[in-house]
């Protein structure tokens, strides 16, 4: 079949495609198809399973699509019998992630402005101190932070989820790289018009750094939404949990009732998947940049 394609015809107007090229090209597309199934398949499987009955989800051979769309897993998950306040977990996760994101944006951008645009004694030292913590693994801080959170009376509260993570060096480091690149002429023009540093910061620097701020916003939202270790240890009451911590509880309770667990996992995934679809440019750019800038 392929030999007819590769037969050299002198007057052929089409670019000739050799058998080898055709084979290579179909191999390439086959490989991409396999990758697509490998990486997207499990996510799809999670979604379809959550819409099956318990019997169908555990039947062999498995069905790819549910024979009838059955929402009983979601009914169990979201039922108001109070055993597992899943909607409450969604709300907790949302409030924590949004609060954390806003706090990071405010404190990191202010600090980055000082470090990028202002001259002062100790600037190098402070910057070095902040950056050096990028290389200290997070688990070193878990024990002492638990005590500090306890002393602040923040155990089992949302503050434990919002505030400590905002001390991360990444945001400051990431924004500083952008701020130093904004032309000084803009700042000078504003200064000549009598703007003070707060006005320069809010009206010149921040509007010019929107892509960087958007990237940091999305990355910090995702990190907080997905955080697992910290919420599992600082939250105790079922109604205070976030979705990831709640999933652990669900898995423990519904050991083999996979439709219910998949429904829970799906509820935890949908917001980040939607966020990813709309902001993947920022996320991927932010990740790529973090690699290039060390």
């Amino acid at each position, binding site marked *: 079949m392929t030999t007819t394609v590769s037969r050299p015809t002198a007057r052929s107007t089409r670019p000739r495609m050799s058998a080898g090229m055709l084979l290579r090209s179909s191999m390439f597309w086959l490989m991409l198809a396999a990758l697509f199934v490998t*990486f997207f398949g499990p996510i799809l499987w999670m979604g379809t399973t959550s819409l099956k009955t318990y019997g169908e989800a555990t039947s062999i051979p498995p069905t790819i699509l549910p024979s009838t769309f059955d929402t009983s897993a979601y009914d169990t998950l979201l039922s108001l019998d109070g055993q597992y306040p899943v909607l409450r977990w969604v709300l907790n996760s949302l409030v924590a992630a949004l609060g954390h994101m806003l706090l990071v944006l405010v404190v990191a951008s202010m600090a980055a402005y000082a470090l990028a645009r202002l001259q*002062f004694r100790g600037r190098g030292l402070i910057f070095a101190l902040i950056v050096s*913590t990028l290389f200290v*693994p997070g688990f*070193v801080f878990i024990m002492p932070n638990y005590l500090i959170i306890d002393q602040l009376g923040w155990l089992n509260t949302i503050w434990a989820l919002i505030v400590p993570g905002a001390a991360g060096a990444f945001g400051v480091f990431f924004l500083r790289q952008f701020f130093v690149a904004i032309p000084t002429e803009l700042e000078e023009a504003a200064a000549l018009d009598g703007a003070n*540093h707060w006005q320069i910061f809010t009206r010149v620097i921040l509007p010019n750094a929107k892509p960087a701020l958007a990237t940091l916003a999305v990355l910090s939202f995702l990190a907080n939404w997905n955080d697992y270790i910290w919420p599992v240890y600082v939250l105790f009451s079922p109604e205070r949990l976030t979705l990831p911590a709640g999933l652990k509880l669900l898995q423990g309770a519904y050991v083999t009732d996979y439709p219910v667990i998949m429904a829970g996992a799906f509820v935890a995934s949908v917001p980040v998947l939607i966020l990813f679809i709309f902001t*993947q440019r920022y996320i991927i750019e932010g990740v790529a940049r973090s690699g290039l800038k060390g």
Partner: protein
Amino acid sequence: MTQQSVTSARPRPAAEQPQPRAGRKVRRHAWWTPYAFLAPFLAIFGTFVAFPAILGVWMSLHDWDYLMPNKPFVGLDNYLDLFNSAASAFSRFWEGMLATGTFVVASVPLLIVLPLLMALLLNRKFPGRTFMRAVIFMPYVLGVAVVGVLFRFILDPNIGILNFLIESSGLIHVFGLFGVDAPIPWITAQPWAWISLVGLTVWWTLGFNTIIYIAGLQDIPAELYDAAKVDGASRGQQFRYVTMPGLRPVMVFIVTLTVLASANMFGQSDLVTAGGPGDSTRTVLMVILDEGLGAYRMGSAAAMGYLLSVVLGIISIINFLALRDRDRPRRRRRKAAAKGSAL
């Protein structure tokens, strides 16, 4: 060199500006202005990073039991216990280190090589390239909790889809040649539990490294490939002499980050295997958290944390030294010599 793609987004390098001292007037500000801008961040940083770093050392030098009123000073005992086989913390800690070490050794090479292949594939020009990059990266935006419970289901020996696919595709006969019978115990026996945990981690995080590699690939100037082609370099030679040296800084970053991330492994074991079979997948981070927040021996747990981070620091330094550009001084000398002869 690695800064090229980033600087292109920047307006212009400082050196090109006509008046280097033009920013002077702007810099005039009250002495406290910079500190006011820094204050909110430094307050949080001081409370949850700088102070804890010191408090952690203090805790590690005491018999710090969260539930006890007295926390007597014990000097380096918490650390020495980790090297004393008679102490109770000894075996727990080192079994955890062994599990974490096993995971690092198994997962890091895969997470270095597979993303590189993926990046080379997705750096080619074809319709749908951006879409495929997004698909590969997508699992990474899911949290470990979601990935954990999802794979707990996929890997279930009896009703999981993985065993069904392997059995129905006939692949099980290939496994059979090695004496493996269906159903494969992905979660309940070794080495399957490690294979599962490494596999799902590769699925979950491969996109992250791939994206960094792609950015690194795009930073390699096209002229270098043109020059290599003119010199008659094959594709293999181009990869070896242009691509690999060009990726070196990115590689240092990826190896460091991947080792650190793998050494932090916790959620996968916690949710998929619950540390089992036996305690074989109980990672050192699980041990530390059990010690400190389960049994409330926080001094001992803090000591474990510091010892682990020292080990990781040493690994990072070795990695940096091993991957640093050893040819650079020689190349620079050669370049200087070439310039001299041209003059």
